């Protein structure tokens, strides 16, 4: 290594622009290295394919200055773990070189008990110079229900073991006693164990490379650069806010499950932007739920970070400085700031979509009013809630397993003023995410994929159509003592918005078909490939609740899940009829929707009849004018 110190800060504390740029890039590469290392070590599809991992660096005081491109929900929440480690353990048992602390309490940070975080102090010549943290969603916590997102939980005590900064590495020594305690308390110790090992690996990789960087640039440079990254983030965020109109935007959505039962509850967001500051106010949001459909404050903060970084502050640095101009008002005792010890395990999947989407809708309308370069981010709904199925039992290799499926990480993206949303585009909270490989999944779990495909009509109609989500059917195959359940939100309400006359994406749907004739039908040469075909094979059909406690399933029992597409943009009657015809051919839209909501008349081959379409659309507009009532004049009788 060259020992020459590059780019020492000059007397003004100014860093050489070029060296600073190079340093930032290298640091980002390091957290990416860490994230990739975690993916290689983990055995969890949530981590490896869902991309639910992240490495990030913090200042010695616990302020995040740089984060990798994993799951961005945890950037701010994880900083809280570093700060709490400092608060609680500085003196006893002390914070030493070679230590690593394991946390997962959702009232301190993260989203829910599945979010296991290991933070590691980095020492240079005896001084604490930074922290690195590695985060992972581990889908088993030893909770009342498998996976840790619990249809039956009413308190956080039901949601699995909670760790409060256990020294899993103690002065460079691996603590087998702690490791055994936190893994053997769960239903799948090997999976949980590899995940913990993966976080240790991520921290090791990041810390080693960070110290090489300190060697190379010198500590003064690195310290100045850390501060500058945070300050730059804030500066750029304020600059961007200045370019936007001042005003107030408002949005509301409904969830459909308390966690324990199907029932509606409201989430409201009012965004006020003035000058260089922006306030997200959730006043008016429903009281906290008795079940798991709640978010503790750290989870809400984490979700908002994600909202901002994906849309309003797109392209700006991912650190705590960037969100400094933001203020959050989340009344205590509501679903966005649940009081301890409320159950909160649905914070990420169920609540997160709701509280994120209402903020996104406000921002989309603000960006639209700003115009120009901001228009393309005036995007319709793209990150609503979903519902995930899970299984628990003995797999084909005779091993106990907890399996969950993250195919909903291919939801449709929202439409914009210029284009349709991306079909099965991904999950915006996990930019590195992908969906499971069918064969890898079948190898690991006693489950067979009957189909996984684009779901017709799952995107919100509009002048530009929301991207379609997908649908899949999972058939039990070769397991023993298997039970299944589901968690999430959005079967009886659409956790999705449409923009400016575009429709929200329709809700998710999940049902099971049990004790059917499927085995015989398959042996005879027939495989079902749609919800309709699943309904045609006899047996009993069970519509699942959004949060469905476990029930027993046997071989050839099937569960169907359809997930969310993106929201539409603009009046669907203004969509190009040719585009609707193409959608019909590509199975993105049904004939019924093409005619009913888009007003496009198609011939038997699916070609649009332009004259008939114009007439049909005129009729629909006339009907709107005839049946609509001015609200001001309607009084209490709504039309």
């Amino acid at each position, binding site marked *: 290594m060259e020992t020459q110190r590059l780019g020492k800060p000059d007397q003004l504390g100014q860093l050489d622009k070029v060296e600073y740029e190079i340093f930032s890039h290298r640091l980002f590469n390091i957290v990416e290295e860490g994230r990739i290392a975690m993916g290689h070590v983990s055995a969890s599809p949530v981590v490896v394919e869902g991309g639910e991992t992240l490495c990030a660096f913090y200042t010695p005081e616990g302020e995040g200055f740089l984060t990798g491109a994993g799951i*961005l929900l945890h950037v701010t929440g994880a900083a809280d773990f570093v700060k709490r480690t400092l608060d609680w353990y500085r003196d006893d048992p002390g914070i030493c070189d070679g230590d690593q602390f394991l946390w997962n309490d959702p009232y301190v940070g993260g989203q829910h008990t599945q979010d296991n975080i290991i933070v590691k102090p980095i020492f240079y010549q005896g001084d604490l110079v930074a922290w690195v943290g590695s985060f992972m969603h581990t889908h088993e916590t030893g909770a009342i229900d498998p996976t840790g997102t619990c249809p039956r939980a009413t308190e956080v005590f039901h949601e699995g073991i909670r760790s409060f900064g256990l020294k899993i590495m103690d002065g460079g020594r*691996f603590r087998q006693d702690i490791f055994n305690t936190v893994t053997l308390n769960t239903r799948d110790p090997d999976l949980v164990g590899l995940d913990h090992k993966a976080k240790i690996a991520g921290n090791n990789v990041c810390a080693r490379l960070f110290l090489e960087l300190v060697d190379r640039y010198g500590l003064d440079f690195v310290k100045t650069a850390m501060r500058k990254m945070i300050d*730059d983030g804030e500066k750029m965020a304020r600059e961007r806010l200045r370019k936007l109109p001042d005003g107030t935007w408002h949005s509301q959505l409904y969830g459909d499950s308390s966690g324990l039962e199907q029932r509606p509850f409201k989430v409201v967001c009012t965004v006020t932007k003035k000058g260089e500051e922006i306030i997200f106010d959730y006043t008016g949001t429903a009281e906290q739920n008795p079940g798991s459909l709640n978010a503790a404050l750290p989870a809400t903060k984490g979700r908002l970070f994600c909202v901002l970084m994906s849309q309003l502050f797109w392209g700006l640095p991912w650190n705590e400085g960037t969100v400094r101009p933001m203020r959050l008002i989340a009344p205590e005792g509501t679903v966005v700031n649940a009081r301890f010890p409320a159950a909160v395990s649905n914070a990420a999947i169920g609540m997160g979509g709701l509280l994120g989407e209402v903020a996104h809708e406000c921002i989309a309308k603000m960006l639209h009013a700003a115009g120009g370069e901001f228009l393309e981010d005036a995007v319709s709904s793209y990150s609503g809630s979903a519902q995930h199925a899970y299984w628990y039992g003995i797999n084909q290799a005779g091993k106990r397993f907890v399996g969950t499926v993250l195919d909903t990480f291919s939801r449709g993206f929202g439409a914009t003023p210029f284009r349709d949303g991306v079909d099965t585009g991904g999950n915006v909270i996990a930019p590195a*995410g992908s969906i499971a*490989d*069918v*064969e890898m999944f079948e190898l690991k779990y006693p489950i067979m994929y009957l189909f996984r495909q684009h779901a017709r009509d799952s995107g919100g109609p509009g002048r530009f159509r929301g991207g379609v989500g997908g649908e899949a059917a999972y058939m039990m195959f070769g397991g023993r003592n298997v039970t299944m359940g589901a968690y999430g939100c959005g079967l009886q309400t659409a956790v999705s918005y449409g923009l400016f006359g575009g429709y929200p994406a329709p809700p998710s749907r999940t049902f099971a078909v049990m004790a059917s004739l499927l085995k015989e039908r398959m042996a005879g040469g027939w495989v079902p490939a749609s919800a309709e075909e699943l309904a045609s094979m006899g047996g009993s059909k069970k519509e699942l609740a959004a949060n469905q406690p476990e029930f027993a399933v046997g071989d050839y029992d099937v569960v169907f899940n359809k997930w969310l597409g993106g929201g539409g943009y603009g009046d669907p009657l203004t969509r190009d009829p040719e585009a609707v015809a193409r959608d019909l051919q590509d199975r993105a839209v049904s004939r019924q929707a093409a005619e009913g909501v888009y007003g496009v008349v198609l011939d038997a081959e699916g070609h649009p009849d332009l004259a008939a379409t114009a007439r049909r659309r005129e009729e629909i507009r006339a009907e709107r004018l005839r049946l609509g009532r001015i609200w001001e004049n309607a009084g209490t009788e709504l039309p």
Partner: protein
Amino acid sequence: MYFIGIDVGGTFTDCVAIDKNGKSVIVKSPTTHGRLLEGIFNAIHLAAESFDTDGQTLLQELSQLCHGTTISTNTLLSKSGAKTGLITTKGHRDALLMMRVGRLTHPPKFGLQFDRPEPLVKRRHIKEVSERIDYKGSVVSPLIEADVIQAVDELAAEGIQAVAVSLLWAFINPVHEQAIQRIIEQRHPEIHVTLSSELAPFIGEYERTSTTVVNSYVALRLRSYLKNFSGTLSERGMEVSPLIMQATGGLLPLQLSMESPITTINSGPVGGAIACRELGKLTGQPNLLGVDMGGTSFDIALIVDGMTTVTLASKFAGYDISIPFVDVHSIGAGGGSIARVDVAGRLKVGPESAESEPGPACYDKGGTEPTVTDADVLLGLINPEYYVAGRFALKKELAEKAIREKIAAPLGMDAIEAANGILKVVNSSMVDAMRTRTIQRGLDPREFTMVAFGGCGATHASFLAPDLGIRKILVPYSDTAFSANGVLGADILRSFSVTDIFQPPFDADTFNRVFNQLDQEGRKLFTGVGIKEEILDFMHFVEMRYRGQFYSLEIPMPPRALTSADLEKALDDFEDLYERFYGTGTRFREAGIIATRLRSDCIGKLATPAMQLNGRGKSGIGRSYASRKVYFDGWADTAIYRFEDLLIGKEHEGPAIVEKTGSTVVVRPGQRFSLDEHYNLAIEM
């Protein structure tokens, strides 16, 4: 007796020729797009002249012709492949389009919109057939032939030329894929068929399907090119059958190459990697980092312990290919990379490129964006009067204007500072990419020698190496035609593998049986196309992982009958390598270690003579011909050498510039350089 390697690149067709005594020649001739054979013959004629003969005679006396072609790569890039259809398992028609989301880039992009590459198969040309096989290979639902007949007839009616067949678990049990192939052959023999179970017998529904589709898409173009190529050559007197370079890292006889067209994709850069490996053998260096910097891209190849490294999954033009290829990692950084100041006031370079048209500003072909080459000119690294040996004058004032207006002014710097900034930023992104490639594999870059080639490699290498702690750089004699060297230096190679789950404790008999079968398969295939059994050699590998994990590590095994001690040792090797990657505390033997794939590389050793360059160029004057100011974080008087003037073994001090015919070698202050006996320029620091 002559041995020829021909590599067709985007700009030049390179030809390396060696006679039986090792006398060798490297020539370049412009690539003739649309009529590639013309450029190839031009190059062969040029080579023949150096041997005082003519092209016809050279062809007649050929004992070996090795060829690297970009036909498949270009077919994919220009979307000019066959009209392709896909037949897949009912319920899974969208797998190809969903691409398992397909945002996986490095680093991942965090955007609200993105575009997947245009599918190579239209949605209506994806046909489902009712069938199902489970993970054990058992038929759960039989194939319905009526479905197949309907599907293939519809595809044929649509004018489909090539059909990819990819069914779930076909790599464990190919019976349904084979039945489909029979039906297509009976009803529509003119349609080209690729089976996933034959081409890419690996786990991964989407990846295997994508691979199969890419193969179908490029197959017809490659086959017709190769037929034409060999037909024309034999008309002109060539008697041997050509060997075709593959991205798997070896050559394949023409006939076998036609059966898996996909493996010629990216074979050019792989040729560069092979050339590095061979250079390492020649100079006795096992660990090499090959860096190929051209106009638009920077390719990194790793040679570890004398072997190329392999990647199981690659992406080309956005399409996934999961066949083990030699790992050549490419980033968008080259001489033509454009520098700009972004909205946040940060200096960025690339990946956008000015390409060769309009090219860097200094080319004076209408380009106004500042590029890396413009910065190099302004800093004095490149002599504008001696670019490509003076055949092409550069306009320094245009370089300066572009950098001053687009970079220096917005950043509040002077033009030289800005040019130096461009140089540093592009160099650091290349360094970051190299770090990632080495560190991810648990390798320490300081243990490597850098091999710099491509048009710009020699200019930038001396900035890159110190940043990685590398102490030695080799600029090969043929640095601008290095891939052709690799094509000629390669052996015949094909991999055979079995994907399965091997549970511990491992059984030596089982492993030996599988490896024997794989070796036998290789022997049969190669001897069937006339390769002599005595030149065959085998290398064995086992892929292992902790139970439940998704990523494996590959452990080499001794190529003989294995004992239980060998397998015990393999477990230790696995855990050692694992801990080297992921650090202390990450071993986890209790979780169980499983093997997921056994692979045998069947190698046909070729008796290509080594290049002998001795006896040429010894008459050099051994000193610089000029001196000028060059910017190395400050102006320094720098000696300028012509490559022809250098004497073998004589050492010189930096700062220095060595002007080669097609490239410029930069030696920084404090570095030393000399010419070795193989005419490589060695820079040490």
